[in-house]
Every structure is written in structure tokens, then in C-alpha cells.
């Protein structure tokens, strides 16, 4: 199987879908002549022309609405935000228009479009360039929210998102673009939206995460093996719709859950997941659900402070230990 970068996987997904369907176009800042601020769209303008790979002015609200209008009458635009931070300038367009077009028109038209770009911290880009937006978009009916952690998932999920008839918020992570991984060749790789992936099976604790946090989670799971703690790591991949089945089955098996997200805790993805587990899996729980989240601060610049603000392996390990340190449970696992 070929080994390619996450960014190449995204590019391959777009290229293949544009070759397959001439309604698919790419709209955004620097996507054409510059080949993409993070080189995701490299070469696409040369192949598909300026009308299909459209360089826009810095006008997020304008070009997001433009993509919606085009989607309403039959195109399938991909909008690239240079980073998700700037999508907030188009928040009205996404929440008030894109998400609601199908419902308000009673399905006279839909908004088949993908809104994609990188988010997340770790590159010392500071408060206005490091935010995780999933909770802000998760909240609104009419949108799907997905996030791939591996190159293979990036390709397969993006292709599914492009073929989906709904507006899909497709979250990438700045820190994943260089990551390499095996990606099955060929145009048929589709990862279905709404299906989580058990990236590592385990018996004692369920660890729920997605996007870049998958990696510290896997590392923590590996380290905990030494303590004879077996952690099941689930990569959610799709946040809305959510694969609650897989989550609850796992919790029913392990009786403990830890949620790891880079976004903030209050009203965030972690709260959502632990709430769902309490609501639907309460009887299965032997310990409170632990939440490991980004520090509730605007992202600081200084390298050391930034690292303190993002969940790390140690924080995840301690959270796993806490779920196991319940009275009565301590003995068998801490032998």
C-alpha cells in the first residue's frame, strides 16, 4: 500500500472527485495560483482551470454564501478556509444560511457542500489561529461535522463528504498535514460518515477521541500497557452524526470512559460525549467519565505555555488512572 502524507491524501480525494464529477469545484483563498496556503490543492488549478479552482478575495462571508448559492442550484462546492479560525467571519452564512437552506425550503433545494480547512494548536500560532471549532458547529442542526486523524481516513472521509448531499464541516488539523500513512490506492476508498473506528482494542477503559488527539491517546494507551491497563481507543471520525452504538458497546465492555479533546471543556465535545454516556450507559459505568480537554484559556504563544494548554500523554494517563482508582476497583487492576 502506498505511504503518503495526510495533505496528499486530501488532495487525492479532491482530484479524484473532481475528475469523477464536474459539478465539484474548490473555492477559497489562495487555493489556485498559490496552490493552497498549506499546499492541499497543489496542481488542481492547472488541471481543472480557474473557474473550478477559484481564488477568492479575503471575503469569507461572501465566498461561503457564494458556494451555498451554487450548491442550491446543482454544483457541489468545496470551500477551503485557510484555517477554521477565519470561518468565524462567515459564521452567519454557515449557521443561518447553509445549515438551514434545506429545512426552510422544505427540501426544494439542499446545500451539498464541504467546508474544510485546518484547525488546532501546537504551532505557536497563538489565540486567534489555534482554535478548535467543532463544538460551535456541532451544535447546529443541518450540518455534519467530521474529522479524520489518519491519511487513509482523510482521503476516504473527504470523498464521502464530497458525495454527501448535506453540508459537511470537515475538520483537518494543522499538525497532521505532514503525517504519513498507508492509504489504499484507487478512487474507491470511501470511509462512511457516522462510523467510528476502534483504533486499538482494549478491555479496561474506553478512550474516546478524534483528530490529532488520537496520537497522544494511542501513546498513553501503549504506556499504560506496562501497568497492565488495557485501553480501548476509539477514533470517532464523525462527530455529527455520532456513532453512539460503538461508544456504548465499548463502555458496556470496559465500564470506564475517558474523553480526550483539544477543544475547551464547557459546552464542548467532551461534555457532550460524557453526557451521552451518563444518559445511555449509566448502569454500565463503574467510575465517573473523565474529560481531558484544552486549557480554558486563549491559546498562548510561548512554547511551554502552549504545550501546557494542549492535552498531553501524561494528562491522559492520569485520567485513565483516575477512572480505575475507584474504591473497590483499585485492587484487581493495581495489583
Amino acid at each position, binding site marked *: 500500500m502506498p505511504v503518503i502524507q495526510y495533505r496528499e491524501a486530501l488532495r487525492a480525494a479532491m482530484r479524484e472527485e473532481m475528475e469523477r464529477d464536474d459539478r465539484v*469545484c474548490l473555492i477559497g483563498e489562495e487555493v489556485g495560483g498559490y496552490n493552497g496556503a498549506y499546499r492541499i490543492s497543489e496542481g488542481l488549478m492547472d488541471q481543472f482551470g480557474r*473557474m*473550478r479552482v477559484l481564488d*477568492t*478575495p479575503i*471575503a469569507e*462571508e*461572501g*465566498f*461561503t*454564501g*457564494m*458556494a*451555498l*448559492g*451554487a*450548491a*442550491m*442550484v*446543482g*454544483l457541489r462546492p468545496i470551500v477551503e478556509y485557510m484555517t477554521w479560525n477565519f470561518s468565524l467571519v462567515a459564521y*452567519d*452564512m454557515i449557521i*443561518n*444560511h447553509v445549515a438551514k437552506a*434545506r*429545512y*426552510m*425550503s*422544505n*427540501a*426544494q*433545494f*439542499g446545500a*451539498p457542500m464541504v467546508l474544510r480547512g485546518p484547525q488546532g494548536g501546537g504551532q505557536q500560532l497563538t489565540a486567534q489561529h489555534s482554535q478548535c471549532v467543532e463544538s460551535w458547529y456541532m451544535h447546529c*442542526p*443541518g450540518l*455534519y461535522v467530521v474529522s479524520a486523524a489518519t491519511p487513509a481516513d482523510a482521503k476516504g472521509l473527504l470523498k464521502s463528504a464530497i458525495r*454527501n*448531499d*448535506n453540508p459537511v464541516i470537515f475538520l483537518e488539523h494543522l499538525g497532521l498535514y505532514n503525517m504519513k500513512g498507508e492509504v489504499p490506492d484507487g478512487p474507491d476508498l470511501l470511509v462512511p460518515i457516522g462510523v467510528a473506528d476502534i483504533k486499538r482494542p482494549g478491555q479496561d477503559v474506553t478512550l474516546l477521541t478524534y483528530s490529532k488527539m488520537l496520537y497522544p491517546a494511542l501513546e498513553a494507551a501503549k504506556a499504560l500497557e506496562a501497568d497492565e491497563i488495557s485501553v480501548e481507543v476509539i477514533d470517532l471520525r464523525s462527530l455529527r452524526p455520532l456513532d453512539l452504538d460503538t461508544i456504548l458497546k465499548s463502555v458496556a465492555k470496559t465500564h470506564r470512559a475517558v474523553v480526550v479533546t483539544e477543544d475547551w471543556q464547557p459546552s464542548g465535545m467532551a461534555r457532550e460525549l460524557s453526557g451521552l454516556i451518563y444518559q445511555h450507559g449509566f448502569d454500565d459505568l463503574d467510575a465517573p467519565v473523565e474529560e481531558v480537554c484544552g486549557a480554558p484559556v486563549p491559546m498562548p504563544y510561548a512554547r511551554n505555555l502552549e504545550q501546557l494548554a494542549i492535552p498531553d500523554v501524561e494528562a491522559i494517563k492520569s485520567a485513565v488512572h483516575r477512572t480505575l482508582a475507584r474504591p473497590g476497583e483499585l485492587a484487581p487492576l493495581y495489583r
Partner: protein
Amino acid sequence: MPRRGAAALKEAPASGGASDEAPFSNDQLVDVYRKVLAARRFEERAAQAYTQAKIGGYCHLYIGQEASGAGFLSSIRLGWDYAITAYRDHVAPLFMGTPAGPLMAELYGKATGVSGGKGGSMHMYDAPRGFMGGWGIVGGQIPIAIGLAYASKYRNEDRVTLCFIGDGAAPIGAFHESLNLAGILDLPIVFIIENNAYAMGTALKYTNSRTDLHMYGEAYGMDHRAVDGMDLFAVRRCAVDVIEKARQGRPQLVESITYRFRGHSMADAGQYRTKEEVQEWRDRDPLEWLEGYLKEHGILTEDQIGHINDEVRHEMKEAVDFAENSPAPEAGALYENVYA
């Protein structure tokens, strides 16, 4: 009957050409008359139903502005070109051929409404006829409009998009972003700012750095002009011209100077305007003017006009009956069409 230019037009360039010849055939004129009449009666019935609490939410009437909408919407290719507007949207679909019944039923929140009862007054749609809504956030429809036009250009289809905008939307960023984008991409679009002098209760001069709004087109290198939006013939001449230019990929900006006779919405008594001001504009009622023109030029007799009025009154009664007798949406519809 003389067609006076609006006072506001004094400083704006003339649009239509001076010819007194009607820019419509007689048949077209009768059709436009019928539609303007239907629009007026529809909204009067809506106002009545609103005061009876049969219609909920907001209800923004277009009464007084009909010449503007009719002039433009009678000049596009129905079922081919697109039109889109804000929340003052009952009348555009009527001009585009949507039957009154489903529009009234939408106001009543019924399953038979154009949007299945999910849109209400501000979110009417008739996609098969090219009417793309009906959007409740001021300025929100403008970027969407350029997307419609972008799709037309993308597919090499000679469709034009008409985008209706209130004067209150001109200060919004999306308006300027969209004009810029349309200019860069040479989109087949006509932006029509319907300048009725007020955004809710706030007069234009308090909200806009300049009050000759078509001049914003200048900044974006776009053809721009003002037209007397109370003068059906002037609007029509202007519309035919700008739509042709837009079809060739030259985006157009028109400021249509008009007036709403009523308050901003049914909840607004319009206290911020003087009686004299309102009366001055009511004297230029486009419906009365058109009726007078048809009679004076022997296109319709008094009797024929009476007959059309009877028909329209009957049609509106049927629309109201249809709305009243239609079922509310099934509870199951709550979850329908959130996702595909």
C-alpha cells in the same frame, strides 16, 4: 396621466430613455396589471389575516413597491432565470407565477405552503420557477445570489440572477464582498437596491455614508444607475437593458427608488414618517397609475377592469380558503428535511 420622477431622483442619472412609448405590449401590460393587482390584494388579505392572529411571526408587506418588482420580474425568463430577495418576499413569487394558495398557506403555517409551513412569511421559495427565496438575515441573500450567478457561468448557461436588496443592507459587509466578487468574476447578475428610504424606522441618511446608493457600484467598477421605482415603465426599460447586459456577463447595480406605504412590518405603525410624506408617495400608487393608464389608452374598459378585479378577488378568496382549510404539517414533518 403624467409620470412624475421621485424627488429623490433629481440628482440621479435618468435610466429609461425619454420615449413615451410603453415598453410592454398591450397583452403584457394587462398581465402585469393582473399581477400587481393580485399582489396588492394578496397582501391586503394577509394583513387582515395577521390582525386576526391567523398568521404568526413577522409579516413584511411590499405594498407600494410593486412597480419595482413587477418591472424587473416581468423582464426575466421565467423558469430559467433566478431571483432572490430578503424577508419582504411575498410578492416576488406571485410575479413569477407561483399560485397564491400555497403562498397564503405558507403564511398560515400549513403543510400545503410553498415551504411546507417551515419557512413562513420570510422564507418563501419556488425553486422550479427560479425563485430562490426568501432570507431573513439582512444582506444574507446577496452572497447566495452571486453563487447562483457563478453556477450559471460555470455551466455556460445564459441565466441571469436578480438580487433584490433593501437600502438597509447596503452598509453590510456581505453587500460589498458580493459586489467585489461579482465584478472580479463578471457574473451575470443584477443587484437591485430597493431604496424605500428606511431600514425599519431609521432613515437612510443616518445609516449610509452616501444616500445615492447606486454609486457604490462605482467603487467596484460596475455599471450602475438609479431608476424611479414607482414608475413601472421606467423600471421596465431599465430592467430590459440591465438584464441584457448582465446576461452578457456584465454585473449591474440598480437603485430603484421606491416607498413602502405601510410600516416596516405589521407590528410597525410607521410613526417615524409624516402623514404628508406618506401621502406624497401614495399619490403615486403604482396600481392606481397602471389602472388609469390602461383606461386612458383604451387597453381595458372600465368593465373589463371590473371583471379582472372580480376574478382576482375571487382568486384571493380561494387562496385564503385553501390556506384555512389546509392541514397543519404532520408532527413527523418536524424532523423531515433537516438532512438529505
